[in-house]
């Protein structure tokens, strides 16, 4: 065996483990473990920082177990364990090194606190390292065991762990959501840590894990039968069922800010503005395949148009003082106009070149707002202040809880428009251009008109989002409209699934909502974005909720003879 080191299974396992170990050491040294340690997953037992390291070992053991598939059981177990040992070994090495040499001069985050976390507060570093390596071995073999288990079970257990983890992370959210029902809140209080402690209680974690695993197992084995039974119901009942569930979702969306309180409403508002932008960019990138990296320009134009038309600050030359509702259409039209103006010169440009040009366009708009030349009109770096909030029948909507409804309405309109366009003549033309521009043109599609429509529609949503954003903050500054906003919107579309409407919502919840709720994330937000995008591209390039195939031949044929509106 020693003569063929490259095909040698145990060396491969160790290699995988070492990579995992390097990642583990890295996240420790950049301070991620320490700052995540402040939040508990299981109260008083396991922190998020420890979970992070644990997950790394699990992930890499999983890789090495997958690499040895089709080999004897023992070998797979051994390879998982070896990976775990070598990963943990590197982290233990960090502990030993740190106790001998002061690493802090190079790595600011190599604090005593970090070693405390890594050694489970054991003073004796040698025995702590051994414990660490032992834990690595156990976790590695357990992971291998999980991989060996039948896929049905594997998926159930993984989703059980994921759901328990998510509930632990988002328990504030859960508590607040359940607050109108104190009876439920009290009856599940034992699941969580006592007295304001974060994280689940041990028994709570176990119960949630078992329930989530069981639900997943049954939905995997029985789900289809249930669906078939639902489909077998008379169409009237099915329709009632569908409308009831939509009604429930609608009712929940309507009362949400009242339950959530100002902070969570504010988070929801940020998510909403990004959903709005995501829906717009989804038309340009997801439907029409025109990679636009300067989408923030339309957001900025919407915001500044709203600002110029409604400001009462008197700091700039404009003194129009319109209301929000009067200025909103202007802001949207302004963005549409900009969309067309950008669109015309880039009509013949494809792919990467288009991305670079739009990137430049986004920067031009931001720098234009920042410029001294336009300072008397647009306020330069001081921006524009005292932008009017939306009003409704004399009611001023300037709190997060009331603004929520404006944003919700905007999102619903955008969602409806995007949904209706998706399977229309124009939507199909967009997708045809995305698939093959030359052939699309040869099929009689006017590229100029169709592309401009995509830019304009996308810009309209961006402009609407920006306009609401301006009046939400009541001020606008050029530095709110940096490239990162475009990248965020693009990332949420990619994570959610290009061209998919539910994907936009899921992407916004994941990439905008989650970081807001998990304050520990904020410092590492871009790192997590990057890792998430790379992992998505490698393993699930179509996104979490890919664009669904619209079944038309058989389904719609049944509806062809029904009256319109069916």
């Amino acid at each position: 065996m020693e003569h063929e080191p490259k095909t040698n299974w145990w060396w491969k396992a160790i290699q995988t483990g070492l990579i995992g170990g390097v990642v583990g050491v890295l996240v420790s040294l950049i301070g991620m473990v320490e700052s995540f340690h402040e939040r508990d997953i299981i109260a008083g037992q396991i922190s998020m920082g420890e979970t992070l390291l644990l997950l790394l070992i699990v992930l890499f053991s999983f890789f090495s177990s997958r690499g040895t598939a089709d080999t004897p059981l023992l070998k797979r177990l051994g390879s998982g364990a070896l990976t775990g040992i070598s990963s943990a070994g590197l982290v233990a090495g960090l502990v030993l090194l740190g106790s001998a040499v002061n690493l802090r001069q190079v790595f600011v985050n190599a604090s005593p606190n970090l070693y405390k976390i890594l050694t489970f507060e054991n003073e004796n570093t040698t025995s702590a390292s051994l414990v660490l390596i032992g834990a690595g071995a156990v976790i590695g073999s357990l992971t291998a065991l999980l991989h060996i288990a039948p896929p049905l079970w594997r998926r159930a257990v993984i989703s059980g762990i994921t759901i328990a983890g998510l509930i632990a992370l988002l328990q504030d959210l859960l508590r607040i959501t359940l607050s109108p029902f104190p009876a439920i809140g009290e009856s599940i209080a034992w699941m969580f840590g006592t007295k304001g402690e974060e994280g689940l209680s041990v028994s709570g974690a176990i119960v949630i894990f078992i329930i989530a695993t069981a639900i997943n197992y049954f939905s995997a084995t029985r789900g289809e039968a249930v669906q078939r039974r639902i489909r077998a119901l008379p169409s009237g009942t099915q329709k009632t069922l569908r409308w009831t569930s939509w009604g429930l979702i609608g009712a929940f969306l309507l009362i949400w800010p009242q339950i959530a309180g100002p902070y969570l409403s504010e988070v929801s508002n940020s998510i909403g503005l990004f959903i709005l932008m995501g829906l717009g960019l989804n038309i340009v990138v997801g439907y029409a395949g025109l990679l636009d990296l300067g989408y923030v320009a339309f957001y900025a134009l919407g915001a500044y148009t709203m600002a110029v038309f409604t400001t009462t600050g008197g700091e700039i030359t404009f003194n129009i003082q319109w209301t929000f509702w009067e200025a909103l259409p202007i802001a949207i039209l302004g963005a549409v106009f900009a969309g067309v103006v950008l669109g015309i010169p880039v009509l013949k440009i494809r792919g990467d070149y288009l991305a670079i040009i739009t990137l430049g366009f986004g920067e031009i708009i931001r720098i234009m707002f920042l410029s001294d030349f336009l300072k008397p009109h647009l306020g330069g770096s001081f921006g524009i202040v005292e932008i009017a909030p939306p009003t409704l029948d004399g009611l001023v909507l300037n709190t997060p809880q009331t603004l929520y409804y404006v944003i919700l309405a905007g999102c619903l309109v955008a969602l409806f428009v995007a949904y209706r366009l998706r399977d229309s003549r124009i939507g199909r033309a967009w997708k045809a251009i995305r698939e093959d521009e030359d052939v699309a043109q040869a099929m009689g599609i006017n590229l100029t008109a169709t592309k401009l429509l995509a830019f304009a529609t996308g810009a309209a949503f961006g402009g609407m989002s920006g306009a609401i954003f301006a009046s939400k903050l009541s001020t606008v500054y050029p530095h709110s409209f940096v490239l990162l906003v475009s990248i965020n919107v693009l990332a949420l579309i990619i994570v959610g699934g290009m061209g998919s409407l539910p994907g936009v919502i899921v992407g916004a919840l994941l990439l905008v909502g989650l970081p807001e709720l998990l304050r520990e994330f904020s410092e590492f937000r871009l790192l997590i974005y990057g890792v998430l995008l790379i992992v998505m591209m490698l393993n699930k390039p179509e996104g979490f909720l890919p664009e669904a195939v619209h079944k038309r031949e058989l389904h719609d044929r049944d509806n062809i003879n029904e009256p319109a509106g069916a």
Partner: protein
Amino acid sequence: MTNILTAQSVVKRFGGLTAVNTLTVEIPEKSIYSVIGPNGAGKTTFFNCITGFYQPEEGEIEFNGRSILGLTSDQISQRGISRTYQNIRLFSNLTTIENILVGQHALLKATLFGPIFGTAATKREEKEALAEAIRLLNFVGLAGKGDLLARNLPYGDQRRLEIGRALASKPKMLLLDEPTAGMNPHETEEMTRFIRRLRDELGITILLIEHDMRVVMGISEKITVLDYGEKIAEGTPKDIQGNQRVIEAYLGRGSAAHIPS
């Protein structure tokens, strides 16, 4: 019989290479017309000139008595010329039926607001378009496969779908670029019969690029042979089979062998 398409001394150059050289072709209405020639003879370039993908440097192309030079390929498609591609180019992430619906694009009228507000006119139009698409699906023999993604179709079905998509725009003339490439003899025979049906039942003029001589000689009414961008022969299958220059182009000068018939 009137000519539906006339190409007058068409020249297309790429840098120093003259891909199509003073080519004159007249295609009678409702005929099946083939363009053949060795690889690189300029057949596909000629197709691209007709469909507006390339603009020829010299010459004139008239369709139905009107010049189509300078038009973009979507305008030419709207005039009634539709095509398929040598290497199948479907919208691979759209379903079979969506591919055909895209083909109908120019015949439909809906813009942004019709679909958004769900106007009666748009709904009616969509319903008719879908019915027509399903009819075409049956016609090209893909019934029941409408909801599959185009990229998941087997090779032969992809070829049929490409023709179905081309037919969706109700063309007067159809340009088929090697429709039987990669097919076995049985499939080829089926495709040959299908092409003849297009002409006989739908009255569509067919311009064909094909390498399979059995197909070409079997269905063409007239053949033009290209070599290095130039027309070296023109005539009925019988004329072509006996033409010395054609034999030389295919098999090299001095060869005594005959091209297979």
